[in-house]
């Protein structure tokens, strides 16, 4: 609990015959972090290459199907946001028969062919729809022309052009074309006027140039048959058919997605796990008939792991357990009772401890909820927070959310206790509306007292860190760090304490202590010298935020109550008043829960940790199957 788990080195040597069973068992146990070995030995031997290739190929196919089906999955999912939020994720349901290379192969063979066919059909339909839409937009401007477009062709001596021109330029166009032998077929139009121009081929170039100048927009004469109206009607009809066909396919895809998604996800996970097992074997060293696994293992897991390995190898594996020595790369594994495990989240968010360092998790577990509670100090908000925490634990599966929920639950207890102590329920709600007040004293009107209280808590917290730092330095026999990092603070504090409690009588002694403290800082090789006193002073004052945030919570709550209360006089006013009370308290709750969390965290990370904690270890990452979609047996 006070230090990270002790680690050992493990080395397993066994015959290839037991290889698959041992690897499988280790993957299930998840107690060993594999180490890459130098001199991996037997050249040219790649174990399980064929199996790996099979799995990789299958995985790629499964992913292909998944990629294509997953966009259709949301279409199948029904229900409102509220329902989504309130519904716990169902345990995975999948066909366990497909979870083998042969089974997966069989399953994918049918499915991927079917999905590919649907996909191709969908693609064809979409491109045809695009073509239809293109024709429709092109013909749209020509609707008034009652001409069969298949006749718009160049002949031996004539040419024809189809297009549109802005209504304003139409007269100009007619004027310009007078000099040529052309026939203009046209129709009225509001903004643009459709045109069919027939002329002599020898004048084609000049006519085209003239048209371009005026801003004539040519419509390419595709091989369309019928008048623009007929074409439009035909294509509209075609579009309806195509769209309904497309929707049918989409529906089928959605149905397939709904039915197969869980299976596909399960299969993919299974294949990934298999692949991981193959990949891990790159780290083994090999001889012709044996293999060697090396890794780190938490000392507590040695016995059970060795026993399991002996069983699966029928006693034919040689297992050597060794001390880790002064290796710098030893992974760090938390070793905490389950009650404080959630707080590992906060330790990890700063930095994993080094292997030889204290694990501050238990201290965070002790102090964090208290700080959080002080900063929120409201019974009603505390109850709200407890409910929120309970919901998070109930609804979400991920480790992070579970941990966060538990941290908030612990914090809510302090919030309620302190809220009750200082008589704060939705701020001054009961006092303001019912005239009921309780609590030891109101921090809002005795902020000086509360400030003192906050700083004292801060000094206790800081000195706890200081004591721990001193203990650690003594343990490591690091006198230099002891003097330069801790001793000067001790001298300073004793000096200040003497001055504070005994007064002038000891002022000379105090002065000597202060001077000694400054002398140490002047000698300190790195850092900013005596200015560090300033930063220590800043650290202690920083705990004033405990009070600041709790006052902010109360202050905003009082403001909300006041505004709400003012409106409660009339019926319409009461409606607004209730909305303001509700909205205001929810808002206040939200920002102050966030604020309390962040600031409690910060007091630990910045002020507390600077006294003793560095971090920078590498987290233990065992060879272990991570299951989400294949958790329980399935059906």
């Amino acid at each position: 609990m006070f230090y990270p788990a002790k680690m050992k080195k493990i080395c397993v040597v066994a015959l290839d015959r037991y290889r698959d069973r041992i690897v499988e068992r280790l993957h299930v146990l998840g107690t060993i972090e594999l180490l890459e070995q130098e001199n991996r030995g037997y050249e040219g031997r790649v174990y399980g290459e064929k199996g790996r290739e099979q799995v990789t190929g299958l995985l790629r196919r499964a992913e292909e199907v998944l990629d294509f089906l997953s966009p259709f999955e949301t279409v199948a999912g029904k229900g409102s946001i509220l329902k989504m939020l309130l519904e716990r994720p169902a345990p995975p349901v999948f066909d366990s028969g497909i979870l083998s290379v042969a089974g997966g192969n069989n399953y994918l063979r049918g499915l991927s062919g079917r999905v590919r066919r649907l996909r191709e059909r969908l693609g064809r339909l979409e491109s045809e729809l695009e073509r239809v839409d293109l024709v429709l937009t092109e013909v749209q401007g020509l609707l008034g022309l009652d001409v069969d477009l298949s006749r718009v062709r160049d002949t031996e001596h004539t040419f024809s052009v189809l297009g549109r021109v802005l209504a304003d330029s139409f007269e100009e166009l007619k004027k310009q074309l007078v000099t040529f032998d052309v026939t203009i077929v046209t129709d009225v139009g509001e903004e643009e006027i459709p045109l069919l121009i027939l002329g002599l081929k020898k004048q084609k170039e000049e006519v085209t140039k003239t048209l371009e100048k005026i801003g004539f927009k040519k419509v390419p004469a595709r091989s369309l048959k019928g008048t623009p109206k007929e074409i439009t009607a035909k294509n509209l009809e075609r579009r309806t058919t195509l769209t309904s066909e497309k929707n049918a396919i989409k529906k089928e895809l959605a149905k397939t997605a709904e039915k197969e998604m869980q299976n596909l996800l399960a299969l993919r996970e299974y294949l990934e796990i298999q692949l991981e097992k193959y990949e891990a074997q790159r780290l083994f060293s090999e001889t012709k008939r044996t293999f060697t696994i090396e890794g780190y293992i938490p000392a507590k897991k040695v016995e059970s792991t060795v026993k399991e390995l002996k069983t699966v190898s029928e006693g034919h594996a040689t297992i050597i357990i060794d001390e880790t020595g002064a290796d710098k790369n030893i992974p760090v594994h938390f070793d905490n009772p389950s009650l404080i495990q959630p707080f590992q989240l906060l330790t990890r968010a700063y930095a994993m401890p080094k292997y030889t360092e204290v694990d501050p998790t238990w201290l965070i577990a002790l102090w964090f909820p208290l700080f959080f509670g002080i900063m929120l100090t409201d019974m009603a908000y505390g109850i709200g927070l407890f409910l929120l925490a309970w919901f998070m634990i109930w609804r979400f599966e991920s480790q992070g959310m579970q941990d966060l929920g538990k941290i908030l639950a612990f914090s809510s207890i302090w919030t309620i206790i302190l809220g009750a102590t200082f008589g704060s329920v939705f701020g001054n709600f009961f006092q303001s509306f019912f005239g009921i007040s309780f609590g030891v004293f109101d921090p809002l009107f005795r902020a000086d007292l509360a400030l003192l209280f906050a700083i004292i808590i801060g000094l206790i917290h800081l000195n706890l860190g200081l004591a721990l730092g001193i203990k650690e330095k003594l343990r490591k026999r690091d006198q230099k760090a002891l003097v330069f990092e801790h001793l000067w603070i001790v001298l300073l504090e004793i000096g200040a304490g003497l001055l504070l409690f005994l007064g002038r009588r000891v002022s000379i002694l105090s002065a000597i202590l202060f001077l000694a403290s400054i002398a140490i800082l002047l000698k300190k090789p790195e850092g900013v010298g005596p200015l560090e006193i300033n930063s220590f002073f800043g650290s202690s004052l920083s705990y004033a935020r405990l009070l600041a945030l709790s006052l902010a919570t109360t202050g905003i709550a009082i403001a909300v109550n006041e505004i709400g209360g003012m409106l409660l006089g009339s019926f319409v006013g009461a409606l607004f008043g209730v909305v303001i009370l509700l909205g205001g308290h929810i808002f206040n709750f939200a920002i102050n829960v966030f604020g309390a969390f962040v600031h409690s965290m910060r007091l630990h990370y910045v002020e507390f940790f600077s006294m003793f904690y560095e971090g920078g270890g590498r987290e233990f990452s065992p060879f272990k199957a991570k299951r989400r979609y294949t958790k329980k047996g399935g059906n």
Partner: protein
Amino acid sequence: MATDIGLGLKIVGAGIAIGFAALGSGIGQGTAAAAGIGAVSEKEEMMGKSLAFATLVETQAIYGFVIAILILFVI
């Protein structure tokens, strides 16, 4: 209503103390938070440290707050 100029000045002084301190710390916090978000979007594990750095700047506001309280209650 009592017209105590001394009290009025105290309140104005407290307001100035917290107001300017919060202004400066707000500007600083904006920059620090922006940088923090930048770092977190590339390295998620920076989340904790970024939050701590963003609130680091708030210490100045806290000093302002402490001074304000001292003005109002102690002096």
